[in-house]
């Protein structure tokens, strides 16, 4: 039965770490956006879009967590019994999205907060501000891809 | 003009003495006036020169000060200049030009008792070097300004004295001397007439006496 505990730890890490990362990232952009909107309320829509960017890592983490839970059969009511090796490999599969999700969400938050400064000066360059922040997304996508592939094809 | 004098020979002598005195006084005053005017013109010329130079320098100093003001907040400027380091001790003496007493300044600059602030009573952090420049110019002008004040006063006093002397000279020349001369003429005429009267009288008496004898 130790296997299942390790697998659940994997769920917790995938959802938890990337969620924390997203929360920090979104919060950071939110603070920056609030500052801008204090002086210039018309920019609310644009800043909201930027603020939403670091949310994706949390979603990827959630997705990974759900896949692990489905694999475990939690939703069907018949929880499979796992060996330690099986559990450990599920835990390992969750790590890419947990770690990369955590750090990339914060990094993306910083890039998006800087983008807030950009649209304060040049609202017309909104697209570029988003592009810069979205570049960080690439690595979150890679990590979630690897995590899911590991879980589905192992 | 009615002349009320005793047409006596004594009066005539007295008047003649007065006339020569008035003429001498007139000449003396005239000389004094000429000398005063000469001195006055000298001073005025010097005054004009100095004044023009100072006006130019002051305009420059004000322009410099303005620039210093333009680059410093009012409060900083006020702070920099509120406590002066220099005292001016000024004493006034009298100088005699043709019996006119004109002021003569002598001054002494005193710096803070023991400090070594020089003429700049402020620090360097907030102040602009443009202030240094204008303070330097202004402090250089200060002695010249005092000299100008002294000259202007001298010129003013001399002008008043010249006016007074001129009035006296005119009074002597156009009033007193003609009047004495006329009086002398009148007395002389009167005396002549008296003499002629006495002569006629004598001749008349002589005729009467001769007729009786």
């Amino acid at each position, binding site marked *: 039965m130790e296997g299942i505990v390790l697998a659940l730890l994997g769920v917790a890490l995938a959802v938890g770490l990337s969620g924390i990362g997203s929360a920090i990232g979104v919060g950071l952009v939110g603070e920056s956006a609030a500052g801008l909107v204090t002086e210039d309320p018309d920019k609310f829509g644009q800043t909201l879009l930027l603020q939403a960017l670091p949310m994706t890592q949390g979603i990827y983490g959630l997705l990974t967590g759900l896949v692990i839970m489905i694999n475990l059969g939690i939703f069907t009511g018949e929880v499979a019994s796992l060996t330690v090796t099986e559990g450990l490999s599920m835990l390992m599969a969750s790590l890419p999205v947990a770690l990369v999700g955590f750090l990339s969400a914060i990094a993306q938050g910083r890039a998006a907060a800087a983008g807030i400064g950009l649209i304060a000066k040049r609202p017309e360059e909104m697209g570029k501000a988003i592009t810069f922040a979205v570049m960080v997304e690439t690595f979150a996508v890679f990590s979630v891809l690897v995590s899911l592939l590991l879980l589905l094809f192992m | 003009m009615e002349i009320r004098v005793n047409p006596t020979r004594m009066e005539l002598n007295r008047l003649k003495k007065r006339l020569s005195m008035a003429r001498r006084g007139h000449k003396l005053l005239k000389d004094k006036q000429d000398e005063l005017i000469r001195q006055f013109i000298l001073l005025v010329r010097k005054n004009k020169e100095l004044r023009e130079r100072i006006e130019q320098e002051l305009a420059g100093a004000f322009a410099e000060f303005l620039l210093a003001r333009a680059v410093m907040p009012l409060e900083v400027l006020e702070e920099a200049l509120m406590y002066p380091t220099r005292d001016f001790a000024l004493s006034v003496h009298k100088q005699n030009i043709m019996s006119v007493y004109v002021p003569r300044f002598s001054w002494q600059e005193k710096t803070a008792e023991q400090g*070594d602030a020089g003429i700049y009573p402020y620090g360097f952090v907030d102040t602009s*070097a443009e202030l240094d420049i204008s303070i330097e110019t202004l402090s250089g002008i200060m002695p010249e300004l005092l000299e100008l004040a002294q000259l202007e006063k001298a010129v003013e006093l001399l002008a008043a004295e010249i006016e007074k002397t001129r009035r006296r000279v005119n009074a002597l020349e156009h009033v007193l001397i003609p009047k004495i001369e006329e009086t002398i003429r009148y007395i002389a005429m009167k005396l002549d007439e008296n003499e002629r009267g006495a002569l006629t009288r004598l001749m008349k008496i002589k005729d009467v006496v001769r007729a009786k004898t």
Partner: protein
Amino acid sequence: MTLARDTSFAYAVGRIRALETRLLDRSKLERMIDAASADEAIKILAETDYGSAVAELAAVHDFEEILQREMALTLAELEKMSPQKDLIALMRLRYDVLNLKILLKAKYLQVKAELLLPLGTVPLSTLQAMVDEERFRDLPGPLRSALDRIMEEFPLTRDPQMIDLALDRVLFEQLMAEAARLQSPFLKGLFARQIDLINLKTFIRVKRMERDRDFFKKAVLPGGRLPLDRLISLFDEPLDALHGQLSRTDYATLIEEGVRGWMEKGSSALLEKLADDYITTYLQRGKRSAFGPEPLIGYLWAKEIEVKNIRLILVGKINKLSADAIRERLRDVYL
């Protein structure tokens, strides 16, 4: 205590980004310079963020009120938005020192101090009471001991310059100490550069005043990036030696151009403008960072320069200064 984490400045930086867009740009200032009269220049100012203040203005000559109000507002806003109040308090310290200088001099002259700047950390009435009672317990340590020393020495020397020199020195010592306490290389770099520039200007000014090396030693501020003893040892050499010594520092062009301008035109205007521009360039990194205190300090400096430029233009316009004389002294804008 160290400086707050850079991301804690996110809100403030967001606001600064919006505020920066309202700073007067070069073209506005140029239009003011080209205005036909002071009234015209004020009208151009009224189109900007200064509009409401200008509307309340009774006469052009009272423009200092607008500028003072603008600085007070800026400082108060920054204080409100900064996650760390003592950062802005640090920037207010120089106004405390200025007010102390005025109050001390007024005390020794036995007059009432007018024209104080209500921009410091300590309320003016408190400062006044401190000077009246000669009790400086509530002030930071170094400032307090400097004041105590002044109270002791001034009655002997009656040298007002000593008050300024002593307080300026303690101000920058305090600023450097605070920068070290906050462990902020940015602030340290800022104050050290300001000290260097002041020292370089003092170097030339003291030389022009024909004072000796001992006096220069008293006037220079410690803590800059240029080593003090080298500056002091350079003092007895001709001015050219200064260029040589500085040729490898980033003050080289500033000193060369500034001093040349000074010698040629007899005016320190260019050097002082270049010195301010140098600090502006240093602080312009604040425009690029999305977090940290740099944008706040940069914005504050930008306001100071803006106020300086407006004062320059208005004083110039009121007194019919030539446009060239104004332009020569106009500081680069932060934008």
